[in-house]
């Protein structure tokens, strides 16, 4: 039985072949090809097999078509054979007439291809990310649960005791599972490496309804010991370490110094909570005893049939209000948020993707308008031909059918090129798109038919229009239709251009945000010390040793270490309640602060200014006065108008009072566009942490600094892996990836739209000129000057442009409202952007009208009059 995880042959190629083959042997042939594909794949790998399969399909196409023809001749139905012959003749005729006017054909096919390609690609992406069901059985009954914090953060992580209480007392939810994401774990082996781990409650696998491919899922007893001894690993990890997933079950691995027995291997398709997760460890049930103020769990649940999200929400809110009463010190004001898992996963990407979808729809509209214009223009040029054919006995239906077939040939050619281009774009997109885009790996072309269909429709309806246009007194009418289509194109292009410029401008202002540190010429590297080999009181000494080694390197200006680094998305971005000595406790859980570790050199190395007091020094040791440093956001919130220095503070998770000895500049820790949050820095020597990032500022090139960094850590302990070596500049630039993606994609569509619009206005003006040859000839013969002729032609163009621009600005304002939430530091109706985009559109479209208008000047009155 074929299972879902079995590899399948290239889908598009397979469908293509099936479509080409006649009914009688369709599956016989496809099955044979599939069978051989599996052999090829096993022998030569999937890349080669893919290529092989495509080649087989392409080279089989003529034979498949031949078999289909034989199919037809076997049918002794004369009438149908005749009709088929007539259409075949039309196709031949259409192909010939398309080839006879390669310019027209190329323009129409290219336009269709751009429109269709952009749409199929975008639709495939949007479909995979937003619309398609998550890859879990009965995914619609899965929900994500958050704590809602009293400061208005509705999606806050859940504390372990709150989770256990919710799990045990909610009757409306079948099962509730908790997990942590992106835990840094270190695999201790001959070659130590870092793992992306997730700590989960045993319910996880039952909630998602995905059992391991090998071995077993976690059981409640796995979570019983304080230090669980089992693990579940990913397919990729099992293959990497043990050669095959089956061989991994029963093996023992050492994670963070504790041996764990692998009891299960997940299927390769399993990607929860994230695609890169290597290992799932059971969450000890004893975490129920931890503090309710440490919020760090993600929670998902499965609703039983018939229970709505609202009912689940009510039931969990009831639990939350009970907890609020019972634990008013920690839970006052806290509630819960329950959202369908699909919505939670797609989250923030929904709007940008839907905007992209809208933009690409505009590109398709423009493409359709252009093809319509081209066909109209062509219809008017071919009046003579139609007249001759009618005279020779062709009925209106004949001519009509031929037109449809011609449009069809163009639609199919354009659609095919578009779909092929889109499949290429989608495969590139999987590499280029930000990894933060959820469900990235599920994207593939889904829109084979949806690609051809609009192409067909687009070209079909106008052929009818064309025919009407050429039988009626068509000229003025056709001109008006053409003008209106182009005005619409200009409007849509302008709206897209404004949107793109707004996004680009907000990206620029986002990059202009001062992150609070100096990101240039800084290299970072992380370590995660073995807690078995080093007691916590030795950690700081090891950091000092590495830092001393690094300071001695040539070209190094400053060295420090800290954790977690700003904008790095590193785990451990925990927020804590705050207690200030001599003041009543702050409203429980309301005023949260971020806790950061730092060594003496950290602030200098990061380029964070010390505004008041001092930075940490080597004299701040475990046995000296506990000290802390706060940032300006902290000082402004808790000590407005007074001196923060000398006050004693502590985080609610910490029992030691620490004296504030310095105030440093505010740093954007979590995102560039959010407000700066208060931070409290503690000295790594006084509050040991096993995970830290070294920060090296130097003049040399980053690569040699990175090499020096590895060497320095190795000289202290060769068994400690150094990971995530990167520049601080990269960290900052990664923080703007989603914005870059939005701006790039809309700019790309605006570019497509602009290109098509220029083609469109050029085409329409050319047609005016060629239609008015006689009129122009008469006027030139009567003594009209070049200026007058130009004014006539350009004047017509200008009217169209004016209508387009005004409509476009209205559209742009409407679109601005749609993307308001994606903008940063720029108004939706930024006058500079509006004016600039308008000017650009006007200039470019004017040039497109001037070129054919120029041709009108060269009209020879004698020839033009004779021609009529």
């Amino acid at each position: 039985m074929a299972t879902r995880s079995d590899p399948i042959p290239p889908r598009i190629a397979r469908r293509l072949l099936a479509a080409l083959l006649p009914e009688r042997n369709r599956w016989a042939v496809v099955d044979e090809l599939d069978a051989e594909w599996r052999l090829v794949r096993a022998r030569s790998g999937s890349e080669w097999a893919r290529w092989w399969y495509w080649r087989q399909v392409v080279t089989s196409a003529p034979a498949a078509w031949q078999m289909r023809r034989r199919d037809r001749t076997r049918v002794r139905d004369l009438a149908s054979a005749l009709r088929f012959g007539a259409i075949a003749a039309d196709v031949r005729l259409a192909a010939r007439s398309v080839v006879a006017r390669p310019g027209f054909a190329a323009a129409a096919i290219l336009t269709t291809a751009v429109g269709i390609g952009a749409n199929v690609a975008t639709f495939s992406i949007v479909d995979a990310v937003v619309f398609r069901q998550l890859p879990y059985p009965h995914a619609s009954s899965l929900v994500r649960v958050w704590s809602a914090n009293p400061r208005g953060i509705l999606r806050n992580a859940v504390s372990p005791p709150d989770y256990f209480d919710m799990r045990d007392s909610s009757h409306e939810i079948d099962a509730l599972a908790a997990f942590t994401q992106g835990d840094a774990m270190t695999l201790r082996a001959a070659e130590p490496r870092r793992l992306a781990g997730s700590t989960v409650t045993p319910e996880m696998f039952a909630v998602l309804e995905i059992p391991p491919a090998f071995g077993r899922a976690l059981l409640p007893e796995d979570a019983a010991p304080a230090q669980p001894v089992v693990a579940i690993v990913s397919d990729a990890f099992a293959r990497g370490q043990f050669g095959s997933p089956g061989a991994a079950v029963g093996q023992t691995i050492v994670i963070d110094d504790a041996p764990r027995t692998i009891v299960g291997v997940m299927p390769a398709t399993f990607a929860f909570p994230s695609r890169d997760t290597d290992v799932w460890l059971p969450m000890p049930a004893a975490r129920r005893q931890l503090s309710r103020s440490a919020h760090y769990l993600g929670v998902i649940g499965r609703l039983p049939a018939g229970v709505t999200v609202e009912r689940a929400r009510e039931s969990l809110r009831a639990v939350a209000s009970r907890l609020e009463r019972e634990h008013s010190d920690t839970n006052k004001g806290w509630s819960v948020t329950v959202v369908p898992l699909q919505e939670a996963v797609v989250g923030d990407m929904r709007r940008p993707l839907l905007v992209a979808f809208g933009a690409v729809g505009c590109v398709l509209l423009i493409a359709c308008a252009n093809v319509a214009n081209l066909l109209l223009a062509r219809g008017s040029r071919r009046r003579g031909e139609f007249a001759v054919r009618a005279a020779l006995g062709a009925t209106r239906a004949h001519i009509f059918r031929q037109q449809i077939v011609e449009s069809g040939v163009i639609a199919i050619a354009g659609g095919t090129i578009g779909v092929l281009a889109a499949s290429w774009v989608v495969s590139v997109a999987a590499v280029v798109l930000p990894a933060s885009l959820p469900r990235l790996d599920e994207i593939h072309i889904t829109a084979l038919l949806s690609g051809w269909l609009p192409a067909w429709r687009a070209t079909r309806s106008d052929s009818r229009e064309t025919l009407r246009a050429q039988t009626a007194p068509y000229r003025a009418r056709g001109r008006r239709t053409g003008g209106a289509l182009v005005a619409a194109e200009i409007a849509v292009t302008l709206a897209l251009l404004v949107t793109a410029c707004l996004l680009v401008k907000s990206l620029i202002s986002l990059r202009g945000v001062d992150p609070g540190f100096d990101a240039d010429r800084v290299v970072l590297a992380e370590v995660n010390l073995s807690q078995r080999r080093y007691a916590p009181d030795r950690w700081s000494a090891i950091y000092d040793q590495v830092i001393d080694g690094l300071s001695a390197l040539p070209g190094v200006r400053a060295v420090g270490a800290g954790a977690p680094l700003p904008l790095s998305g590193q785990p451990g971005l925990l927020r804590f309640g705050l207690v200030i000595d001599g003041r009543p406790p702050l409203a429980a859980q309301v005023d949260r602060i971020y806790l950061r570790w730092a060594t003496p050199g950290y602030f200098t190395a990061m380029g964070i200014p010390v505004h008041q007091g001092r930075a940490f020094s080597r004299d701040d040791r475990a046995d000296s006065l506990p000290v802390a440093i706060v940032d300006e956001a902290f000082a402004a919130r808790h000590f407005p108008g007074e001196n923060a220095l000398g006050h004693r503070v502590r985080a609610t998770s910490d029992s030691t009072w620490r004296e504030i000895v310095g105030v440093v500049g505010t740093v954007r820790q979590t995102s560039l566009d959010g407000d700066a949050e208060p931070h409290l820095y503690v000295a790594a020597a006084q509050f040991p942490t096993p995970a830290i990032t070294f920060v090296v500022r130097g003049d040399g090139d980053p690569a040699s600094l990175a090499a020096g960094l590895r060497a320095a850590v190795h000289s202290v302990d060769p068994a400690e892996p150094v990971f995530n070596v990167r520049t601080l500049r990269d960290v900052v630039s990664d923080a703007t990836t989603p914005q870059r993606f939005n701006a790039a994609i809309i700019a790309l569509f605006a570019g497509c739209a602009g290109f098509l619009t220029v083609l469109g206005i050029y085409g329409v003006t050319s047609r005016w000129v060629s239609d008015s040859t006689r009129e122009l000839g008469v006027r030139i013969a009567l003594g009209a000057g070049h200026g007058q002729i130009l004014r006539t032609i350009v004047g017509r163009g200008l009217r169209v442009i004016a209508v387009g621009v005004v409509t476009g600005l209205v559209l742009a304002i409407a679109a601005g409202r749609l993307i308001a939430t994606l903008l940063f530091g720029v108004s939706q109706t930024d006058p500079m952007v509006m004016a600039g985009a308008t000017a650009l559109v006007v200039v470019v479209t004017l040039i497109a009208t001037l070129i054919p208008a120029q041709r009108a000047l060269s009209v020879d009155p004698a020839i033009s009059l004779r021609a009529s």
Partner: protein
Amino acid sequence: MPRGDYLGEFEEIVLLAVARLDGEAYGMTIRREIEERTGRGVSIGAVYATVERLEDKGLVAVGEGDADPSRDGRARRFFTVTPAGASALDAAEALRASLRRGLRLRRSSRG
């Protein structure tokens, strides 16, 4: 049968492959056999189209194997050479031999 008396070159190759495979001749195995023996790339479509033509000429018979769960329960089709097919192969061979008999081909010797 105006043209059916002679086997086309590719028809002959396919028919020979079916004969060689002796009961194991499926679309895929025929294709592989030809590719391996002749060293030239062949598409599955061409193989199938030719086998169908041979079937129409009565030179090849089609049979169906058991339903195969990996093909959504579809049976796999296999091909065998009919007695007429065997004689057609013999006739082709004989025809060629009779044309060739007593013929001396001159070749310019190359250094």
